[in-house]
């Protein structure tokens, strides 16, 4: 309850700024319309006109909300009930696109997490890996993903592997990094004393890893998973842009910009944000449960 008040406050501020920004951004068109009709607009008429245009530069929140509702539950085949399975799975609906993006995001996230943990383990246990691989891991993230994504898509397409896999690779590319960095720190988190103690018991390297390093790294793992899943979503959407805009949230964004349909773009953006929020909330829940059970919760 205590956390809901600040969240709502911020939300209200954002909505206020949004409505306020819509007025000057959409005013030109409204004034032109009025001039053509030889009328002048009062201030309240101007505001009303800017908030309810058919093709606004910046659609207002209620317009985006209406668009979202229309393209999720009402994008219907004739004669079908709104919200029915046929409607939700219809190709004009956002849901199939969200599912496309979500499935690729989760695949990329899973591969990225596995790769990230694997790299972190090898970096922690091998000085050579630490010296040779770590700089490349960091360098890999300085390359703009927008530059490399089309090349990955093109290369895989030419090998006859379109769609899912190249997009998942782009998502992996972005999501392994936070996991690697977080887990290197996490696996190195045990104190000298704890490691010495394992040594006095003559514990093997594997035992030390499983019983000490891995449990100690859990808070670090969850923190980096939250960053990784968001990065994976961004990677997926970027990967969807050059694939011909067939399916996915990225495709909706591209479609919207082709046709100057700003409401479609904003609806797709909100859909992406909702996906990210759901995934991060799921990880946070897993984090809370795990750390509480491990006695590591703050």
């Amino acid at each position, binding site marked *: 309850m205590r956390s809901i008040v600040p969240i709502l406050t911020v939300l209200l501020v954002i909505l206020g700024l949004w409505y306020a920004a819509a007025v000057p951004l959409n005013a030109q068109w409204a004034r032109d319309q009025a001039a053509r009709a030889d009328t002048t607009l009062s201030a309240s008429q101007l505001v009303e006109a800017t908030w309810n245009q058919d093709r606004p530069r910046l659609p207002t929140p209620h317009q985006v909300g209406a668009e979202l509702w229309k393209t999720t539950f009402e994008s219907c085949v004739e004669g079908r009930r709104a919200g029915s399975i046929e409607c939700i799975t219809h190709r004009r609906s956002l849901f199939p696109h969200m599912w496309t993006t979500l499935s690729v995001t989760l695949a990329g996230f899973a591969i990225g997490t596995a790769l990230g943990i694997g790299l972190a383990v090898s970096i922690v246990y091998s000085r050579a890996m630490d010296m040779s691989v770590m700089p490349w891991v960091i360098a890999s993230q300085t390359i703009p993903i927008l530059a490399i994504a089309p090349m990955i898509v093109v290369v895989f397409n030419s090998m006859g592997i379109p769609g899912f896999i190249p997009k998942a690779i782009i998502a992996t590319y972005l999501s392994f990094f936070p996991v690697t960095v977080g887990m290197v720190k996490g696996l190195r988190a045990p104190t000298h004393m704890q490691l*010495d103690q394992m040594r*006095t018991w003559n514990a093997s390297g594997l035992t030390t890893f499983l019983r000490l390093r891995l449990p100690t790294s859990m808070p670090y793992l969850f923190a980096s998973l939250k960053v990784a899943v968001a990065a994976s979503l961004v990677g997926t959407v970027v990967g969807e842009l050059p694939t011909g805009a067939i399916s996915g949230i990225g495709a909706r964004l591209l479609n919207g910009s082709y046709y100057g349909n700003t409401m479609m773009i904003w609806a797709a953006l909100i859909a992406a944000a909702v996906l990210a929020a759901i995934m991060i909330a799921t990880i946070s829940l897993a984090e809370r449960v795990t750390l509480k059970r491990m006695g590591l919760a703050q």
Partner: protein
Amino acid sequence: MALDQAVKLCLNRTNLEEPARLPAPVISAENLSLTFQTNDGPVHALSDVNLTIEKGDFVSFIGPSGCGKTTFLRVAADLEQPTGGTITVNGMSPEEARKSRAYGYVFQAAGLYPWRTIGGNIRLPLEIMGYSKAEQAERVSRTLGLVDLAGFEKKYPWQLSGGMQQRASIARALAFDADLLLMDEPFGALDEIVRDHLNEQLLALWDRTGKTIAFVTHSIPEAVYLSTKIVVMSPRPGRVTDVIESTLPRERPLDIRDSREFIEIAHRVREGLRAGHVED
């Protein structure tokens, strides 16, 4: 050939029958030195340390920071490598002793795993050493009894006070069959009242189990109260300046600290520490 064997047998017999043969020392150090190479030049943590710890001894190491008392313990535990001299633990090299799990080590902080119960923490070394489930359970409840923590097996570390946590960490070091207990300022972070109480319990435990204990401390009363032998050390280079054999009886109530004998020994320890300081 047959004669050879007969002679050998004979010799073995005489060995066995020899009544006054001294037991091998638990820890024996000869000219032990350890120099750390640091950016500011070499640091002589230990310099020509000669020391013998007999079975059943309670030996305290006392001295200012940097006198090498902890380093000595760490060398015995094979956590540091000496750069000169020799040291044996149970007649073996420290590495062999560590691998045969000859000692239990109690660190300055309890270092219990928050995700394990008290019982689970004490079970940890037993699991690593491959004891059977039944034996683990038996040893956990027995050692918890030894440190007066019976009934706390299912509790988590955060549910216990600092003193209780340190007792649990002592139980963990006692859980496997090491006859030697190395303790590095185990009560350093605790307040004096808790410390007195734990000292009393530690003495009782030492008396009951007959273990050999090497104990690092900053506190003169603690060292005098606990020990059969007090090793006074001084820093730069870390060396032994005095070894005091305590004349106090094995049975030691807390108020023995007001006795004349106790005060005299404490005085000698203080003199030893001061002598080490003057040379600085």
